[in-house]
């Protein structure tokens, strides 16, 4: 298992390096280059040449990439000329809030989706299954921002149950001290993944129910309840870990939308504001950090999977 984890970590490092290359190449695509982005459209060619020389943008691409990697390792993600602040500082300020949002909504989604998917698998092709399948399709189809806006219209404007946005100055821990303000954003983000998780759980349980060891358990006279909970459920649950890892990019992308809808000051809102500001260095910085966070999250999911599944834990590779 140690071998598996080491290989998986090396793979994650390669992925993050690859993403850094993509982000670096994107920064080269800015029309007029970095200098134009920093100095504005009125800069003279002389000023641009000076800026490029000062920042090393006149060097060959691979040298620039090397410097870019070195500065990333030092924790420097570039400079936001629009905010007059380092990108790293801007992101570090926002990252915890996004992590809290993503983490709490994923847990909520699991709490709802796992029993739902199981119930659907047990009542396969009955009315309940059809209705919930319809609901899942609806949830798949509804854009994230529309869920958020509808929740605001219904539960904030009409019923006045919850605030339409968390207080902007709140610390990430406010989710525990003042959870009311977080209900709508967390539910909006969870709604995105509930459909996928419960569908997956449903087919995972169905697949497991078709396995030979289930037939064996039934043949040995185990009660349906024992077959379901003792055999099928436990084996069907494991792949969900992998699914969470695979869904992380979508969840982090969804967080970006949800943060925008609820004016929740996380990394997504930072990205959207930067995009509106044409602040390319900041957009690229958040893209890199969001991806790195996603990759580390998937890595964690895979390691947990390896630790939880005896076939991997004990089987060497």
């Amino acid at each position, binding site marked *: 298992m140690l071998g598996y984890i080491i290989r998986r970590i090396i793979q994650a490092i390669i992925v993050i390096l690859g993403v850094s290359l993509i982000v670096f190449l994107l920064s080269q695509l800015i029309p007029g280059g970095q200098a134009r982005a920093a100095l504005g459209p009125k800069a003279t060619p002389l000023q641009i040449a000076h800026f490029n020389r000062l920042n090393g943008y006149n060097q060959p691409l691979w040298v620039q990439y090397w410097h870019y990697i070195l500065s990333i390792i030092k924790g420097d993600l570039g400079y936001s000329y629009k905010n007059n602040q380092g990108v790293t500082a801007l992101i570090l300020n926002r990252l915890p809030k996004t992590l809290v949002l993503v983490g709490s909504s994923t847990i909520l989604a699991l709490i709802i989706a796992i029993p739902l998917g199981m119930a659907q698998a047990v009542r396969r092709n009955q009315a309940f299954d059809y209705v919930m399948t319809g609901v899942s399709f609806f949830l798949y189809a509804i854009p994230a921002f529309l869920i958020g806006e509808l929740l605001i219209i219904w539960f904030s*404007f009409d019923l006045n149950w919850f605030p339409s946005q968390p207080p902007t100055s709140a610390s990430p821990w406010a989710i525990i001290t003042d959870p009311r303000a977080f209900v709508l954003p967390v539910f909006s983000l969870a709604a995105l993944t509930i459909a996928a998780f419960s569908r997956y759980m449903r087919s995972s349980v169905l697949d497991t129910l078709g396995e030979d060891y289930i037939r064996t358990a039934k043949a040995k006279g185990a009660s349906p309840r024992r077959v379901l909970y003792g055999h099928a459920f436990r084996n069907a649950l494991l792949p969900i870990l992998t699914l969470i890892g695979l869904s992380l990019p979508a969840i982090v992308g969804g967080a970006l939308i949800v943060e925008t809808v609820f004016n929740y000051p996380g990394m997504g809102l930072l990205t959207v504001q930067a995009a509106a500001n044409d602040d390319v260095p900041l957009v690229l910085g958040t893209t890199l950090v969001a991806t790195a966070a996603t990759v580390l999250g998937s890595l964690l999911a895979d390691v947990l999977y390896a630790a939880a599944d005896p076939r991997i834990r004990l089987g060497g590779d």
Partner: protein
Amino acid sequence: MQPLEGNVVPDEAILPEHEADHDAGEAVAEAGFLRNMVRVFGENKLAVASLIFLVFMVLFCFVGPHIYVTNQTNAQDALLNSTQNSPPSWSHPLGTDENGFDILGRLMYGGQIALIVGFAAAVVATVIGVTYGALSGFFGGWLDSLFMRFVDIGLSIPVLFLLIALVTIYRPTAPLLIIVIAAVSWLVPARLIRAETLSLRTREYVQAVRVMGGSRRRIIGRHIIPNSVGTIVVFATFDVADSILLLAALGFLGLGVPAPQTDWGTMLSNGVNYASNGYWWEIYPVGLCIILVVVALNYIGDALRDALEVRLQRR
């Protein structure tokens, strides 16, 4: 798809009148396969209803503006000659928006962009993904590892961040949005088709073509891709839905097509500015359009999967 016909033919061969079909060769087997596909699809009432609805929406968006003629491009004229944010009335069945544009007409106009971009992006993404995946799976070895590592890298970037980065660097127009959305969605079909190719290239009939001296181009073009057609069609259907949602998300973030053009996401984004004013006609109709079109596409994709993948049929 070998198991496909393997499952279909014996089923029908049991009936004496189909025995002739069985012997008549590939063409008839293919016709039987198609007939079977249409039958399975037709039995799914929701999918048939979805297909009818989708055809209706296409007519609504592309033929509708010729019947229900409204001004959707001249912002000045709209501001001067109609009231802004007016509720539904006889002259404007779905009211007007913040610029005085008629919303029913705008739904058609914005729907054109949503449907064209969604469909075109899915086609481009599928073509790129299928080619990439088939090459990767067929050649295998280091090329396959390199190709698939690249897909892994791409798939781990949250799509919206990448989209926003691309759209911030280049100003969005409809053609650019097609390319950008396709650029982030070809990775999944690449992986799917690679997996299919890996299993197909070891099949006897592909081996046979190779032994007979068939070129690689022929094997990929005439055998591997046609046999993956089920996977391709099902993916493409779902991807149209995904692309429409991605475009709507970009529109919502203010990164959709530039005014006076519009798309459903942009319309919704403008509408929710007035959510606290209770201007429901600027939110619900367009929201419903997005949801229903995407639901319809998902139902169609689901039915196609059942119809094309016999493995899942009649269990």
